[in-house]
């Protein structure tokens, strides 16, 4: 197993931290590494963890106010002036509100602006449906030139932030508000466009993006111990471009695939995997995620079971599905 997991992961001593905290550290590090890095925020500086950068590089931090359309278009102009702009807000507002400006002035215009969407997904919790952004993966992965990353934990979020600072491309980073389990280590690999096999098993493969990967590791344990299903778990932090080589290779070995995301499965990560498999290696696919519904207020610990996205609910759904979803053989 080449991917080192945190030794405390899935123990009582499991570490937890919001992915946005990793972003805050990564941005400061990116700013130290390259003076072209600038940061723009729309009145959510501490909430999106940009204050570390602001306090270190006050002249390279720009407060834009509650104006997400201006946020990304000012950033586009700064990129033209040779800067590497990071913009942050809540994902509901950016890219939610300003998608056309991103499309025209960043994606089509091909400027290396970084769009940081914090508070994405169900981990946003009590703020409710308006703030639980579930459509951002679908919105961003259809844009040409755009890189889309949903880091699995705070350590990976830090690495991803540093990586997009140097990739020279328009990039979207999806972050969560609440603490989520830390499964990776400083030594775990992260490269844009790469998926990582965390666990190997021949019965089926679980593909997770963002914070769902940690839950899938728990699911894999349940499946193994209680249901005699030995499954692979693949962590797919980069949703665009997909690591089709790794995914198709594991698909060939396991013959059936489950995807999980805290986002709409329509057009989302599961949608992307469905496109890949349908064209390259058609096989049974179960997509777990939000199914054509909005979220609602509540503690994430209660919301995940409500939306059947906690480990026990997902385990149950996978066991049921696996009974009739026959493995594909070439």
């Amino acid at each position, binding site marked *: 197993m080449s991917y080192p997991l945190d030794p405390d992961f899935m123990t009582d001593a499991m570490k937890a931290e919001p992915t946005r905290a990793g972003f805050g550290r990564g941005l400061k590090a990116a700013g130290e590494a390259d003076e072209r890095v*600038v940061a723009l925020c729309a009145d959510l500086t501490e909430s999106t963890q940009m204050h570390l950068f602001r306090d270190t590089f006050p002249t390279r931090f720009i407060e834009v106010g509650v*104006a997400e359309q201006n946020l990304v*278009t000012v950033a*586009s102009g*700064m990129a*033209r*002036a040779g800067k590497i702009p990071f913009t942050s807000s809540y994902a509901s507002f950016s890219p939610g509100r300003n998608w056309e400006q991103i499309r*025209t002035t960043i994606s089509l*215009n091909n400027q290396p602006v970084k769009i940081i969407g914090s508070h994405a997904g169900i981990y946003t919790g009590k703020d409710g449906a308006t703030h639980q952004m579930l459509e951002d993966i679908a919105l961003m992965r259809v844009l040409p030139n755009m890189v889309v990353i949903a880091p699995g934990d705070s350590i990976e979020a830090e690495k991803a932030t540093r990586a997009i600072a140097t990739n020279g491309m328009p990039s979207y980073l999806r972050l969560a508000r609440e603490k989520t389990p830390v499964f990776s280590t400083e030594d775990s690999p992260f490269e844009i466009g790469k998926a990582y096999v965390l666990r190997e098993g021949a019965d089926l493969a679980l593909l997770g993006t963002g914070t769902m990967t940690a839950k899938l590791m728990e699911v894999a344990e349940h499946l193994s111990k209680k249901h005699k299903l030995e499954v692979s778990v693949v962590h797919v932090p980069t949703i665009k471009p997909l690591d089709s080589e790794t995914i198709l290779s594991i698909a060939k070995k396991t013959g059936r695939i489950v995807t999980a995301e805290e986002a709409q499965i329509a057009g989302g990560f599961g949608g992307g995997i469905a496109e890949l498999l349908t064209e390259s290696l058609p096989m049974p696919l179960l997509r777990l995620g939000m199914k054509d519904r909005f979220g609602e207020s509540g503690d994430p610990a209660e919301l995940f079971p409500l939306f059947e996205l906690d480990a026990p609910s997902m385990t149950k759904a996978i066991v049921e599905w696996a009974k009739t979803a026959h493995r594909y053989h070439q």
Partner: protein
Amino acid sequence: MKQTLIQMEHTATRIRKDIITMLEHAKSGHSAGPLGLADIFTALYFSILNIDPKNPDWADRDVLFLSNGHTVPVQYAAMAEAGFFDKEELLTLRQTGSRLQGHPERERLPGMESTSGPLGSGLSQAAGYAYALQHIDNVKHRFVYVVMGDGELNEGNIWEAAMFAGKYKLSQLIGIIDRNNIQIDGNTEDVMPLEDLKGKWESFGWHVVEVDGHNIESIIDAASQGRAVTNRPTVIIAHTIPGKGVDFMEYDYKWHGMPPNADQAKEALQKLRTLDGKIAHEGAGV
């Protein structure tokens, strides 16, 4: 590069002729805005902007953003006049594979600072560029210009940018509004009233200059004034006649998004010949 006033009046007329020829050949595109902007783009490319057509990415250049991308035929014609590319290429406007897209794309054409079309985003980009020059890089000798339409001032993004530029006193930013009073659905004051336009910009912290947008000397003077104001951004409200120079198009919003057919183009080119060198003397009136 830099031209005298008399030379520029002739240049503006040539640009208008090229616009008519391009649009008729493309059988698609917008007529009124580009014709109305010909004097402003002449002033920009042949007097105001510090640029080098043979070195479009010159590090010391002034920067021009076009916010209302649908008027780009006037910029293409001015760029060809200035020597960014050969005039023959103008006839490729809107053709498959052309660098001269229906709405401008930065990556296709050197000298184009951004990609635009969807309205309301140019001022923010210009403000971002000006912010980088003024507050991060401490570069004082470069200026950032942005041409906007008046119809696009309906967009909220414009006013977000206006607040931003006012807050940060972006004195190296100079906006130019093509105040031609028309947009697709009719006259601006009927569709969504903009007045008191000067008062609006002033209240956002801008220095405002109103000029006759067909008087090249006035446009150049206003830009000089903008560069001299060091504690605020400047916006030039340039009063223009949509379709300027072609009498059957002037003032008529129906020509906003329509190209001339062959007969109309022939007639337009004839009328433009008689105007050669007279544009400034007619004036649009402020």
